[in-house]
């Protein structure tokens, strides 16, 4: 087991596209570290560089104390699980698991013992004598995971391993992976574009955009205080409402007059945007105390909650998350008020968190 250090990673392809602009990561020993970002943000390229499948243009990668820049993937002592499971099609499950061990030249008895252990951990049992084409997607994924852990590598690299599964199975596998990682205590780097996956799995999350790291933090940190406008708009479903505000008589006020509790040390000399979570707003009867007049544009009944889209006279409509019992008709005149604590505030021009 080992931590992973990525310093000033840069990857530029021969055709000129820059996949990774500048990435620094410090992944702790035994940590489940998630890289999250939209497609083309460089997360997979970073992962493949850690694996040794791509050679970085510049920058260093350490796994444990070893500088692995010039090591081949096989010498890095890591295991990877792919979105497409890449089980060898001509081998039965048992041999798929044993394959990397035989490649290492381990004695037969130990190979069998390790395969049995991995099969027990992933509950493969009767699947051991089947070939990949006779396994369902979920089963293939379990075999792929077992094949990764049979090696007892220093780190697991996961490249969107659950994307091809259906929603229900995905939730199950998520729990399974998290449980497994906790039990084995092996460092795991997990790449995904699914924020729910990232939030529920990660000890820490790195949000990547355009080949740069926008923010690294625990799921709660990332949710509560997104480090940039990009993160604010990326995390959360629906994402944060970005409301242009000014500081006026000790409050943050939007153009519509909506008042927000200001965080300490708000700079006064810049144009500001406040990031307000949908659950930090409230739709009220018109004229309720502290509310501004507004109008319901539409409502999405999701069963356990209602998402109201509300026009409060600002450029952009805001989304408000309400209890399913609070019902307003579309087009109804309502009030809108802020109920949460001080929201994070961003500078419009630099798009960075300022307070």
């Amino acid at each position: 087991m080992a931590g992973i250090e990525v310093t000033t990673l840069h990857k530029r392809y021969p055709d000129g596209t820059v996949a990774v602009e500048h990435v620094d990561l410090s992944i702790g020993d035994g940590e489940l570290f998630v890289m999250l970002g939209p497609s083309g943000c460089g997360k997979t390229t970073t992962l493949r560089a850690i694996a040794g499948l791509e050679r970085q243009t510049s920058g260093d990668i350490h796994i444990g104390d070893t500088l692995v820049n010039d090591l081949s993937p096989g010498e890095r002592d890591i295991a990877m699980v792919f979105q497409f499971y890449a089980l060898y099609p001509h081998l039965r499950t048992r041999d798929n698991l044993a394959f990397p061990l035989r490649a290492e030249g381990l004695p037969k008895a130990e190979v069998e013992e390790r395969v049995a252990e991995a099969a027990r951990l992933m509950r493969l049992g009767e699947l051991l004598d089947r070939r990949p084409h006779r396994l369902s997607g979920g089963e293939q994924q379990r075999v792929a995971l077992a094949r990764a852990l049979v090696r007892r590598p220093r780190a697991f690299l996961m490249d969107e391993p659950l994307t091809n599964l259906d929603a229900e199975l995905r939730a199950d596998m998520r729990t399974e992976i998290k449980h497994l990682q906790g039990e084995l205590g092996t460092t795991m780097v997990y790449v995904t574009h699914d924020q729910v996956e990232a939030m529920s799995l990660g000890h820490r999350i790195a949000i990547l955009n355009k080949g740069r790291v926008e923010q690294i933090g625990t799921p709660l940190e990332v949710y509560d205080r997104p480090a940039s406008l990009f993160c604010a708009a990326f995390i959360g479903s629906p994402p944060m409402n970005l409301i242009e505000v000014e500081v006026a008589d000790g409050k943050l006020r939007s153009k519509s007059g909506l008042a927000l509790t200001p965080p300490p040390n708000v700079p006064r000399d810049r144009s500001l945007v406040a990031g307000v979570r949908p659950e930090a707003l409230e739709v009220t009867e018109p004229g309720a105390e502290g509310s501004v007049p507004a109008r319901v544009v539409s409502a999405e009944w999701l069963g356990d909650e209602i998402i109201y889209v509300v026009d409060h006279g600002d450029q952009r409509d805001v989304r408000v998350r309400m209890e399913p019992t609070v019902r307003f008709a579309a087009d109804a005149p309502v009030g809108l008020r802020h109920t949460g604590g001080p929201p994070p505030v961003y500078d419009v021009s630099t798009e960075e968190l300022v307070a």
Partner: protein
Amino acid sequence: MAVSVDKAVSPGPVRDHRPPGRRRRGRGRVVIEVAVLAVLAAVMLFPVLWMIETSIKENRDVYAIPAKFFDFTITLDHFKDVFVASGGGPTTLSGSFLNSVVVAGVSTVLATVLGVPAAWAYSRFSVKAKKDQLFFILSTRFMPPVVVVIPIFLMYRQVGLFDTKLGLILIYTAFNVPFTIWMMKGFVDEVPAEYEDAAMLDGYTRLQAFWKFTLPLLLPGIAATAVFALIFSWNEFVFAIFLTSSDAVRTAPPAIAGLIGGTTVDWGLVAAASIVFALPVLVFSYLVRKHLVAGVTLGAVRR
């Protein structure tokens, strides 16, 4: 008894809801279709049938007027004449067939050995100006061979490749490599790169990963591509007639064409030689027919 969810929501067996009249019309249509297709097939296949007939007729039946369709004596003498000279020993025609086998076989093997790794590289690696390179490779197939035959002829005469099997092998390889690269790139694209990634993480080098995991999955594609290349080289006529002059080097297509001319034409011999020439292509096409279709429709459906 409990009803499973699947059963409860299944729409039940699909019934034929068409009215009976409609079905009868369907059957009538089939009859017409078969009849039309049979006539078309007879027209299209007539030259082939006539060739087969001619090859097994005795000479006086071949030249008989009016032509004899059915009542002729069957003989295999013409086929014997293709291979065995009148005084015993092999004919020059049989030598030409051997030349064809050597030239087509070697050029196909060369094109495959060069083209498959190139296709793999173009599929897997990020190469500078990849699209332009691939277009350039394809563009060498744009012009008809006859356009370049004279410059090639002059060059070959200079470097001593004129009237050699090596010369033919080289030119056929040059024409088949672009085709192999394009065709095989499609097949390589279909094999997920993750197999190689996984093998590399298991400790293999990239080339080993290609050799051990990707190549076996490519074999059907390679077979189909090689058969196409083989058929091209086997059938090629223009270069063969321009770039050879001696019977020792001449391949079958110009040799068979050479049988026609002179004062009398031994049509039986021409037909028999043509059938012998056409057979290998038919057999190979039959063997790889599934892959030929796969090759043609490749990429039509995305994964």
